[in-house]
């Protein structure tokens, strides 16, 4: 029998759907906007298949609460990021979890999807990671237990930090149903700059830049803050105003930041087009199958991972393992003892 689409409208319905799947020995793919899942090849089931139903959280949508004076927002997991940005933007606030540069293919279009993958955004350099902005999650485990972790305050160390554990768990362990995020004021100025001078000659002149993206021809730098500071920083590092960079979108390699330059040095010889964020350890790539296979091998040699964003189901796409053993396996069993949630996800 073929799989089905499930579109629960509440946390209770999510729990019911997960319980049904468990009893029926069906596996579930949890889907937000599908922007990442649809490009994951054999590591995902973006549409129902013989062995999998799809649980879409798109009906769990909308801002639940935005107490602007608390600088927090609570949204249902399926809320589009654009809707979140518009809602908090009215109060002069932002959530720096946006996935990509404006004008590029989105990688994660819903809040739940962004948390699920926790792919790095260019502003991760100064803003920190997605997980550092998550204050509370409501979730349903693979066993059908509905619960929450964290709190709607900016600090909460009650119990184990499951907010961080579930952020970046790629749709395994639990279905996120609601998320509370920390917000911040929108910086008064935000401007991309460009230079062709090697960064070693100007990097020390910059304090806390928001993004640095290097490609084979130069470097793009995002500066945010007070207009006078942005102007002074750009001038002291001799950066010229520019358009945002365009990033290759075929694959993403993640390495220890200290190894980024070593990895990049190998990519030209492999025939890859690349753009690197050296301070956070991320390289955006394009290339043919052979080039990307070579890039994967190189990334893994440097202790990193490569994620192929490719609709071709024949190529392996996802290089990530579930984490340090035996703990990762035990945690999966703790949340999802019958392997209901995306059991095909991890490479090992």
């Amino acid at each position: 029998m073929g799989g089905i689409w499930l579109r629960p409208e509440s946390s209770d319905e999510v729990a019911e759907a997960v319980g049904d799947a468990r009893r029926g020995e069906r596996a579930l793919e949890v889907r937000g906007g599908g922007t990442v899942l649809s490009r994951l090849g054999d590591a995902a089931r973006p549409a129902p298949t013989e062995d999998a139903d799809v649980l879409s959280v798109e009906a769990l949508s909308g801002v639940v609460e935005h107490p602007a004076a608390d600088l927090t927002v609570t949204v249902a997991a399926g809320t589009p990021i654009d809707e979140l940005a518009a809602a908090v933007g009215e109060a002069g606030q932002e959530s720096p979890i946006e996935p990509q540069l404006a004008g590029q293919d989105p990688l994660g279009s819903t809040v739940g999807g962004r948390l699920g993958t926790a792919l790095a955004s260019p502003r991760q350099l100064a803003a920190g990671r997605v997980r550092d902005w998550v204050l509370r999650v409501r979730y349903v485990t693979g066993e059908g237990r509905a619960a929450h972790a964290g709190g709607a305050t900016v600090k909460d160390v009650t119990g184990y930090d499951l907010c961080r554990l579930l952020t970046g768990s790629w749709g395994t362990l639990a279905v996120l149903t609601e998320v509370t995020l920390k917000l911040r004021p929108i910086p008064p100025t935000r401007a991309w700059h460009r230079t062709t001078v090697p960064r070693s000659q100007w990097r020390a002149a910059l304090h806390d830049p928001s993004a640095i993206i290097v490609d084979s021809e130069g470097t793009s730098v995002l500066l945010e803050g007070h207009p006078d500071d942005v102007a002074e920083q750009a001038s002291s590092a001799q950066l010229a105003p520019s358009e945002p960079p365009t990033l290759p979108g075929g694959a993403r390699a993640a390495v220890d930041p200290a190894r980024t330059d070593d990895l990049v040095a190998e990519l030209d010889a492999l025939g890859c087009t690349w753009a690197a964020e050296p301070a956070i350890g991320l390289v955006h790539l394009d290339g043919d199958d052979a080039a990307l296979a070579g890039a994967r091998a190189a990334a893994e040699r440097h202790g990193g991972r490569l994620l192929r964003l490719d609709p071709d189901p024949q190529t392996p796409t996802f290089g990530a393992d579930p984490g340090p053993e035996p703990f990762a396996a035990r945690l999966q069993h703790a949340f999802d003892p019958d392997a209901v949630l995306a059991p095909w996800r991890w490479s090992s």
Partner: protein
Amino acid sequence: MTTTASEPTLTGDERALLATIAGVLGDDGLRTAAYGRATYRRDASFLNAEPLAVAAPGAVEEAAQVLRACRDHGVPFTPRAAGTGLAGGATPVGEDRRPLVISTARMDRIVEIDVAGRRAYVEPGAVNLRLGQAAARHGLRFAPDPASQIAATLGGNVATNAGGIHVLTYGVMSQHVLAVDVLDTDGVRHTFDGTLPEQAGLDVRGLTVGNEGTFGLVVGAWLRLLPAPPHVATLLAGFGSLTDAADAVSAIVTSSRLPDAVELMDARAISLVEDYAHAGYPMDAEAVLLLEYEGLPAGVEAGIGQAEQLVTEHGASTVTRAADSAQRARIWKGRKAVAGAIAKVAPDYYLQDVVVPRSRLAEMLAEVLAIGEREDLTILNVLHAGDGNLHPFVLFDRREEGVLDRVLAAGHDIVAAALRLGGSLTGEHGVGVEKRDFLCDVFGEDGLEVQRRVRRAMDPTGLSNPHKILPTPAGCAESRSTMVPKGAWV
């Protein structure tokens, strides 16, 4: 002091464990006599229990042997660093078996400062302030700065996911832990690495920060260092009422530039520390706000200018900007000296840690004052106001008949009020023993069951710091209003 007749008899397993550890650590590394154990009965809370003995390994391999011995003999253990914890996390509570305290005091090195990589590798017993000082020599800083940083260790900071004064923009400890090395309860070393920017698998590192010693023993960590801010400005504002000060916090936090620190102290706290710190706190104020802005000059100046305007609009009677780094240091010295200065007016204090949404600060302060009046106790308030994090100090003298019951009742009511206002029962001190039974209400049965399973996944033996964080099912059924197990108070 000699061992008295009331000394508990050791079981065969306990004797064998101690013999093994003595062989590994020698006399310097193991204390078994009552006198040697006495200072390890409690941390900076008032929770109190008798350890089996105290083992202080000097190296990872020694610690691994101690953990293996505990496993082999079925003896629980409680990790302990400086013992500055306030929730009983390092109190060796055991219901039928006394835990072995494993002290990290001899593993206290800052092993490496990688200036180019902006990170440091530290052992768990290294003191927080020492890392800050070592980083400063390279133009770097370590952001988490709990008020106890002069004594609190980085291992303890990892255990509790500590906060501090600069959490508002720099985030809690977890945000600054790149990787953590843990010995599991089999004595096997694991590195939970958070170095990759994405695609790193489950964030077991993040789960481990804040584990309160229940996942084995943290034996080292890579910590993130940040560039020292090029420009800093500090503002001191005195108010005629606590409510005005709390309202000013809301206005400042929602303005277009977020400060890097917003602290609030009430009149009692101010009068206690001014003699010591000479910070220039206004002695006639009911409350002071300490505000700090860091970063590039124009943003800092714009922020502090806006803050000056907002505190004035909210009725500040005095507004002083620190003229130089020496005055700034005095202002913060006063803030960090509150706990020590209390000794001048009361022999004992009980320090609470609750969080409310920032817009509820004034309401919560009113609740705290009312609770103090109801229980006839002096409470002074120090707040990480920008985070909505309150630290009421309940002052008392334990020799006073019946006072402990009133102190506990006040503590309970403070927590209950914070929860009622949509807050959290601990912001940075942890659950420990003190607050574990509140988790029944906070999480509900399903949420608690998930937490229990997580703990078993990380420590299937249950030997690592038992009776901490999670209530027993019986605890949920019986004692919802009990903050502390019977007999655990001094």
